[in-house]
């Protein structure tokens, strides 16, 4: 392209250069201001001014992987949202859940979704699951400066591996740290402020090769346990009909479980806990 064409409408020269199939890399040359990692980092900690999302859990089961998240966002001591959604489909065979500064995290999810779709359209192929996990790591790495000022974003990534060798589990989970470290998890994982309690719960309830229904229960129960002990994690809210968001990814793709399904699971857990508690009290009396 000649230099003059840059001043006219139509495609700017960068658009016609056939290099790379990454949307993020392309934005870095064509419109760097749109990238979350390219902005000036705040000079003082601003963590308490921005809403933060909290607990996300993911578990594998016999046909794939499940990911769930509670619905609370907090800002310092306030609950800034009761119905925030923190688990999203990344593409048709993977899901992403986010903990940390909600504004940056949601922007990053949006960028990541476009990144995967862009690659798919340009290459005519879906990216491998490991490739997807790596692209996400690169995005987190770019946010380290903001993370140091209290705007950390820590995602959890899970997907169905279409290239999995026969006999291996197709559902895989990847966790991250603020520096962009990328770790594959075995069986289950949790991130966010309530992750300690959620993991403790999963440690007791999760087993290798659970069927989907039982695995869904372990997810909802671990979030219930996290909400029990962590003030920043929201429990099931039958008054407002707000329940955790759970996505299931299997050979058919990623689907969000309906509120009715999750409500039934959550109600069962609450009833069982109440019964157990009553029995304990009666025994003690």
């Amino acid at each position, binding site marked *: 392209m*000649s230099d*003059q*064409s840059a001043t*006219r*409408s*139509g*495609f700017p020269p960068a*658009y*016609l250069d*056939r290099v790379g199939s990454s*949307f993020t890399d*392309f*934005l870095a040359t*064509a*419109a760097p201001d*749109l990238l979350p990692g390219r902005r000036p980092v705040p000079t003082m900690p601003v963590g308490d001014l921005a809403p933060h999302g909290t607990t996300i859990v993911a578990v594998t089961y016999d046909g794939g992987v499940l990911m769930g998240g509670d619905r609370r966002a907090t800002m310092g001591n306030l609950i800034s949202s009761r119905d925030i959604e923190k688990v999203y489909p990344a*593409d*048709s*065979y993977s899901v992403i859940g986010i903990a940390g500064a909600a504004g940056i995290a949601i922007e990053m999810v*949006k*960028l990541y979704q*476009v990144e995967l*779709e*862009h690659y*798919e*359209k*340009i*290459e*005519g*192929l*879906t990216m*491998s699951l490991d490739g997807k996990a790596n692209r996400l790591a690169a995005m987190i790495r770019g946010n380290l400066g903001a993370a140091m000022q209290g705007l950390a974003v820590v995602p959890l990534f899970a997907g*169905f591996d*279409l*290239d*999995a*060798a*026969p006999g291996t589990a*197709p559902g895989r989970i990847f966790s991250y740290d603020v520096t962009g470290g990328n770790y594959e998890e075995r069986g289950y994982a949790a991130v966010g402020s309530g992750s300690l309690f959620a993991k403790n719960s999963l440690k007791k309830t999760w087993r290798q090769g659970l069927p989907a229904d039982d695995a869904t229960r372990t997810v909802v129960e671990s979030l219930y346990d996290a909400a029990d002990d962590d003030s920043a994690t929201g429990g099931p809210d039958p008054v407002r009909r707000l329940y955790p968001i759970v996505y299931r990814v299997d*050979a058919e*793709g990623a689907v969000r479980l309906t509120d009715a399904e999750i409500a039934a699971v959550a109600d069962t857990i609450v009833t069982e806990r109440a019964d157990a508690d009553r029995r304990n009290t009666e025994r003690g009396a």
Partner: protein
Amino acid sequence: MTMPYYASAEQVMRDRSEYARKGISRGRSVAVVTYADGVLFIAENPSSTLHKVGEIYDRIGFAAVGRYSEFESLRVAGVRLADVRGYSYNRRDVTGRVIANAYAQTLGAIFTEQMKPYEVELCVAEVGDRPETDQLYRLTFDGSVVDEPDFVVMGGQAEAVTGHLREHFLPGMGLSDALQVGVRALSAVSPVTAGAAHGGPSQLTAAQLEVAVLDRRRPKRAFRRITGSALRTLLGDEPTPDAVDDAPATSAHAPSVPEPGTPAGLGDPANPDTAGGAGFDAHDEDGGEA
């Protein structure tokens, strides 16, 4: 003293047009046809990886004829423009008109300013909520853009194919009917079927075709390739009733995904869209007329 060579602007433009037209006419044809549920792309294309038809955005598709390397870079530019716009505004703010305008400007600039014009002809199709709102834009090598009703035909024998379609096209045909009308029109002029009178094949087969649809009934991404047994069934090559169910499975979201558990690169050879690793890397070697 040598006289500086002079050519009138008119002569230069005429030469360039002729050059571009010649390049395009060597390629095989592509037909873009509207049908009841959206827009159907049919390309005569023996390659299963060097696509002439592609997805631009949720409701927007792309088809091209001519020099592969040139229309491929235009396709990528279109995907980039759509994704940047959708990311910085909203997904609904990406329209076929925006993409078609950008192509028109770019092709026009290349035609007037560069020695060699692009030897391509493009179609940008957008599917709406109702058949009346479907849009087909045809873009030629000099940057002219035409909004066409019903169908667009591009490539070597475009006029003959257009004539054939004009006779047989009916608005609101089903997918199978529209496909068969389109394939018959392409077959009528294809060199592959030239020997039909002497017992050769009279119609293009699934392996020689690249077929895709923009299906308005699909949520979000409307683009879907139709390959393998689903295509053979629609063409009537292989009337197996159970294969009809395969049709929706060939999704745009997983365009080239092998069956779960198949190692990369070992797709079903009968189904051209399941090939694993090898793919677009080959585009430069085969940069001639696709």
